[in-house]
């Protein structure tokens, strides 16, 4: 494979996740509305929202600092990078040595750190409320996610996604209790981290319940567009991650040919759509939780992750 083609495909990967992200969010909203008996906005509505926000001027609080101004760009860049590092249609790309699961968790943590600080910059009570709750949720979700990674990594002896894919595709893994627990745990973490129901409601502006929205309450215009795009990318990140780790079928591992790429792309799109629909069904069938119930929810995810690790040993025992 020539270097030019490799770089091109890497750029395609970056562009792909960015272009698909609003569509995934639009699809999730549409499906949820239909399940709730409403018609819902068009699937392309998020593109229109982003375009509208980009056209508007940015209104900033008088005492906003430089951190508040650069935060949206940093958050967007970190999440775009993290999402693009998760393989979608092929695993061997120039940047794929960076696709280490723990490093990806680190990138997400950096983005969250910057955004939580930006929420506190203006010094309003809502900003602090949002940041405080976001960090509480994250401090429970992140270890749960790391435990899922432990479960995977102890089984396949690697934290690099391309190697995990090679392992899973290379031999019949079969159904394993640990993997089932890991999928459930990772899904719970994903729901919490992307601010979906039952943890947070992306459609609400009700003081007592909002988390993410409270944190970014002061943002407007292009800054808000970037943060919105970043949250859409985060949803793609989790869907894509679950797809590539637990269901990597169809992905291109060797030198790409056109047919292989086409199949891989189609498979990825199908997996993302399936994941989005499952998410919508889940969201439509559950009620929003109180903030302090989140600890129990994520504590459950943490324990499932730990159980997954322990079952791994039990099943390996001679």
């Amino acid at each position: 494979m020539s270097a030019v083609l490799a770089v091109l495909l890497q750029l395609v990967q970056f562009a792909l996740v960015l272009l698909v992200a609003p569509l995934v969010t639009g699809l999730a909203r549409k499906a949820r509305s239909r399940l709730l008996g409403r018609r819902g906005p068009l699937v392309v509505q998020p593109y229109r929202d982003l375009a509208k926000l980009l056209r508007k001027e940015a209104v900033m609080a008088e005492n906003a600092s430089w951190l508040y101004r650069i935060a949206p760009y940093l958050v967007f860049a970190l999440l775009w990078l993290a999402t693009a590092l998760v393989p979608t249609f092929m695993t061997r790309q120039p940047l794929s040595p960076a696709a280490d699961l723990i490093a990806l968790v680190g990138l997400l943590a950096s983005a969250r750190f910057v955004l939580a600080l930006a929420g506190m910059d203006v010094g309003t009570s809502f900003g602090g409320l949002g940041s405080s709750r976001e960090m509480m949720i994250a401090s429970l979700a992140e270890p749960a996610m790391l435990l899922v990674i432990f479960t995977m990594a102890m089984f396949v002896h690697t934290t690099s996604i391309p190697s995990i894919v090679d392992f899973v595709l290379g031999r019949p893994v079969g159904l394993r209790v640990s993997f089932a627990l890991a999928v459930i745990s990772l899904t719970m973490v994903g729901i919490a981290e992307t601010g979906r129901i039952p943890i947070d409601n992306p459609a609400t502006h009700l003081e007592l319940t909002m988390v993410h929205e409270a944190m970014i309450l002061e943002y407007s215009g292009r800054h808000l567009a970037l943060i919105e795009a970043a949250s859409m990318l985060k949803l793609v990140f989790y869907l894509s991650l679950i797809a590539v780790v637990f269901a990597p079928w169809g992905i291109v591992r060797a030198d790409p040919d056109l047919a292989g790429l086409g199949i891989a792309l189609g498979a990825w799109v199908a997996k993302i759509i399936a994941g989005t629909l499952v998410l919508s069904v889940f969201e439509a069938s559950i009620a929003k939780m109180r903030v302090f119930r989140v600890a129990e929810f994520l504590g459950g995810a943490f324990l499932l992750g730990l159980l997954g690790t322990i079952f791994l040993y039990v099943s390996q025992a001679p």
Partner: protein
Amino acid sequence: MLMAVLAAVAVLLCLGVIAPILASRTAFPWGDPLAHDLVYLGSAAACLIAGGAALAYFLAATSAPLELSLPLGIPWMPAQLRLDALSAWFLLVINLGGLAASIYGKGYGRHVDEPRRVLPFFPAFLAGMNLVPLADDAFTFLLAWEFMSVASWLLVLSNHRQPGNAHAGMIYLVMAAFGGACLLLAFGILAGVNGTYHFADIRAHPPAGWVASIAVALVILGAGSKAGAVPLHAWLPIAHPAAPSHVSALMSGVMTKVALYGLVRVLFDLMGDPAWGWGAVLLVVGAASALYGILSALIEDDLKTILACSTIENVGIVLIGLGLALVFRVNGLAALAALSAGAALLHVFNHALMKTLMFCVAGAVQTATGTRSLERLGGLIHRLPVTAALALAGAAAISALPPFNGFISEWLTFQAVLGSPLLPQWTLRFGVPVVGAVMALAAALAAACFVRVYGIAFLGRPRTAESAAAEDVDPWMRGAMAGLAALCLAVGVLPRAVVVPLGHVVASVVKAPLPSATNGNGFAGWLWLTPLEPSQSSYGGLVVFLAVVVVTVAGAAGVHRLANNRVRRAPPWDCGFPDPQPATQYTGSSFAQPLRRVFGTLVFRAVERVDMPEPGETRPARFDIRLVDPVWTVLYAPLLACVSWVADRANPLQFLTIRRYLSLMFAALVILLSAVALSR
């Protein structure tokens, strides 16, 4: 190179002697500022020499240890000194921190309440810390160790009129004495019946069996109490903040590392074949310290106390790494042992950088605003722009975020945890992932803790008039902080620059090469850090850093081309009801509330009481929180009660006649002699 370090120590000791003479105002009216400049610039120069010598040791092709015997100390036992890769690594850590603290002190020292109580002991403290890694016999080691303890104790007491500081000094002294006594007994056991205190003799004839286990337990108690490992940490969040900030930086950033040096030296070098139980103890203590430290940091209000609690967490992470190294070494998994030891020693280096930086920031905040309480700060990013930017780097580094240095050592420790399926002991197979999970929790809580610290102190609106009128600090202080922040980023982006010298240290400590240092020579090695095999895991600090920069710039350029670029300044939105009073912001206590509810009720038995007046009543509403530190109530309070009970009972012994004293001594002599006769 050894001579250069010794020369630096001599310079530091001389400075400690000259400073009080110069600073006595009656003798020389111009002495005070001169002593100030001489001490801090001289200390900086000495640290530069000693650190440079340590660096030169790594750059030199030969890695043979350098030895020296000085005719000092007890007549029949000359002081033995030795510079090997392990001591050179710790000398590097000590002198980097010392250099930064000295340069910082050049500016900060003027703001200290009583500079003349600090000047003589600051270089003496540095000299003591430099001597510990050089010592090659138990006597010199303990002498240097106690010298370091006493010098730092005097520095803790330099503000002795401040309420609470005398108490802090008292607790510190008791704990230092306890730790010293444990080490004394440990070396007594290590030396054996023949009493050979030279480390080479101990290395040649290490104790075995249960005797070795007692020695290890004593060393863990002695060095662990100095490093602040749970449950011997109680003094640390009280004593470290009591000292002036540049000394706190040294105590937290550097002295805890010297304590860890003692642990590594004995456990990995002097003791013979380790048992896996020792590693398991370190793992449990490390996990407890990591979680307990960061949870205490989350609920504290004083900036420096928060940082001191976070030191307990980081010491815990290092202990986890060391425990893993022991456990893997016992089971013959050389590459994993090297990886764990490398991760621990790299975290020692990284934590020294970032904790020194953060304490310098705390000192700058205190200088600028006169307070360290989070609830009285706010909005400093507008008033202290340079300090705020550097503090952001430090906060990101200590929260283990890529692309900073803290992430690399924690990532390597996680990679080591993932090797646990290869262990044959079932206890460890189940236990190590649990320890890893606790460490993951601690890392996530650390990010929350430093969002709280930075968000409350530097962001938002000023909560008091002092923080609204704060001025940024002088160039010396800013320079020291900038240097540390730059190093934090540089090590995170180019870890190989540190990992290659670290390879020599690890090779000498666990007798196995560090895979990350030997893997990937040439250009690829600089791009990707690989703990074991390139296909297993890799992290490219430089790649991630460049990618973030490129993607940010590309994103910004794209947005500025496509979007509306106008910015309008307006009052904050705040859902339509902005309140002009800064008191309506989130406070440090309210920020911590969700986490306090989740973890605090379990660990600290946190009770929140809200006293809301009835409608029509005019008294104010009250809210208070009661926290109980379990370690104090469970461990220390009974121990104190026991000690005072014994003291009361022993009190009559102080009022005996000389006849009775003589007969007591005689009885003791008879008992000891008969014990010796029986044991022979």
